[in-house]
């Protein structure tokens, strides 16, 4: 049995009085595509932000390839090969496409003994990146605020996939896209999987999940309701789990003793 790429054990997180996550467990194999679904405020984004280092958990443990990790910030998670595409893309509108892609890990070169940005190299690499991804943006030197929503997402995808990621987390990647753009996102996920990159996709659109995911995890009220292989379930069952918050294949578990 191989070591899973990511293991999250008993992750808990609260925001003031709100319990966002309660002892959540998640295991992800290399190159696996996992769909993460659940009602609004179920805790999906929070769980993924913990995995990407944007939030620190109150309790619980994260292992990457069997080693316990402490993600204090997104940089440490990125170093471990975990990238996240945020729900709002987290792009800086006034910066160019290139500047956004390389933000936080710029190529530098020495000039007059000073470390300076190697803008030319970054522009040309960004250009090649878009060609390889088959993504279209008008120009890598235009500010992202001049791009359409779909193009902005392309930038966010490029940023997350360009740096040898082993896991790409996508928070509702298809929420605001047209049909062709959704197809593009699916293609991207398939391509990542072929390259043995794992993907976690949060989505409210079950058809997207069913079309690309190997496995689905359902969350509600900060807990995992249940888990299914996509080949072994149907939309109806997942919908039932999302709405009822119970797993029909499990005998009714005794209620959580902790007051909510």
């Amino acid at each position, binding site marked *: 049995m191989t070591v899973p790429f990511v293991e999250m054990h008993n992750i808990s997180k609260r925001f003031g009085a709100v319990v966002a996550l309660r002892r959540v467990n998640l295991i992800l194999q290399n190159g696996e595509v996992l769909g993460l679904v659940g009602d609004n405020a179920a805790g999906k984004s929070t769980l993924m932000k913990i995995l990407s280092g944007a939030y620190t958990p109150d309790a619980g443990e994260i292992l990457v390839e069997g080693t316990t990790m402490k993600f204090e*910030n997104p940089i440490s998670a990125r170093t471990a090969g975990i990238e996240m595409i945020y729900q709002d893309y987290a792009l*800086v509108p006034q*910066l160019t496409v290139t500047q956004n892609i390389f933000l936080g890990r710029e190529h530098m070169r020495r*000039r007059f003994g000073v470390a300076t*940005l190697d803008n030319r190299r970054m522009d040309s690499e960004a250009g090649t990146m878009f060609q390889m991804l088959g993504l279209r943006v008008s120009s890598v030197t235009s500010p992202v605020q*001049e791009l359409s929503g779909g193009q902005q997402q392309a930038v966010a995808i490029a940023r997350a996939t360009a740096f040898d990621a082993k896991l790409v987390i996508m928070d509702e990647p298809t929420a605001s896209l047209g049909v062709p753009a959704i197809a593009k996102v699916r293609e991207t996920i398939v391509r990542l999987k072929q390259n043995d990159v794992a993907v976690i996709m949060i989505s409210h659109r079950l058809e997207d999940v069913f079309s690309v995911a190997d496995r689905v995890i359902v969350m509600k009220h900060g807990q995992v309701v249940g888990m299914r292989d996509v080949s072994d379930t149907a939309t109806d069952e997942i919908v039932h789990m999302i709405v009822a918050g119970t797993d029909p294949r499990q005998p009714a578990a005794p209620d959580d003793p902790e007051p909510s």
Partner: protein
Amino acid sequence: MVHYGLFMALGLWIVAMSFASEYFLTWLNFLNVARQAAPIVIIAIGMTFVIATAGIDLSVGSLVAFTSCLAATWLADGTPLALVIPAILIVGTVAGIINGYFVTLALPAFVVTLAALVYLRGFAFVYSNGYAVPITNDLFLAIGRGQFLGVHIPIWIAAVVAIVGWFVVTKTRFGLYALAIGGREEAARLMGIKVERIKIAVYGATGFLAALGSIVISARLSNGSPNSGIMLELDVITATVLGGTSLFGGVARIGGTVAGVLFINFVRNGLNLMGVNPFWVQVVTGLILLLAVLLNTVVNRRVEEWARLGDTEREGQT
């Protein structure tokens, strides 16, 4: 586009004034205006960084007054120049860092630096007892009055500061991160940028440059005065905003800032040469600030919308 508008306005004004006054378009007058503009340029380069991080620093004028009183008093006490200058620059930097520190506590920069505007000038009065202190150190005075290759030293200093500022904005991580923070702080944070550290450094650098500007000003006026630099922050902010640096952060235009300072100073100079009542000059300065903000927000937004619209249309055609 708005950006080039300023250069055009500057050009038009220079042409118009050269018809109105023979003296206007002389090398001597140009040097004179540039020398007056120099300390404003020096401080406005710092302000460009602050505004690019979506901040503001209202305290620079008071910091000029405070550091000028310190410099004049220390020199009068016989402290060697080689000590006074670094010490003044350190005081300025520390005052800026203090501003920056409070800004990183999520207090509005407007209020933090307004407080500093008040207390720094208070310090200046306390320290000087309200009197201007004359400066007689020749070497110090040379910073404001000396020439090199026929050009005044303040102009050289301003040019070096502007070039370094341009270099930092366009070629260094620090400049890029300042823009990223001003553009969208949360995104910058998620990309691992140390937001607090950069902000403190930006305010610290502005304090440093305010102290440098103060040295140039007091060397030219040959005194340190608690009344020095009154309303200077407004000139500096007007020039920066006029130059196209976005009040909402994320965009810095060093060249625009320099042009903005020159524009304000040429307008004043032209009005003076035409013998316009100096009180009107103040009215005009206020109107320029209003114009600057108008260009910066309304017109910029229009242009952006237009650019985006054009983009989607083009996409529709392919």
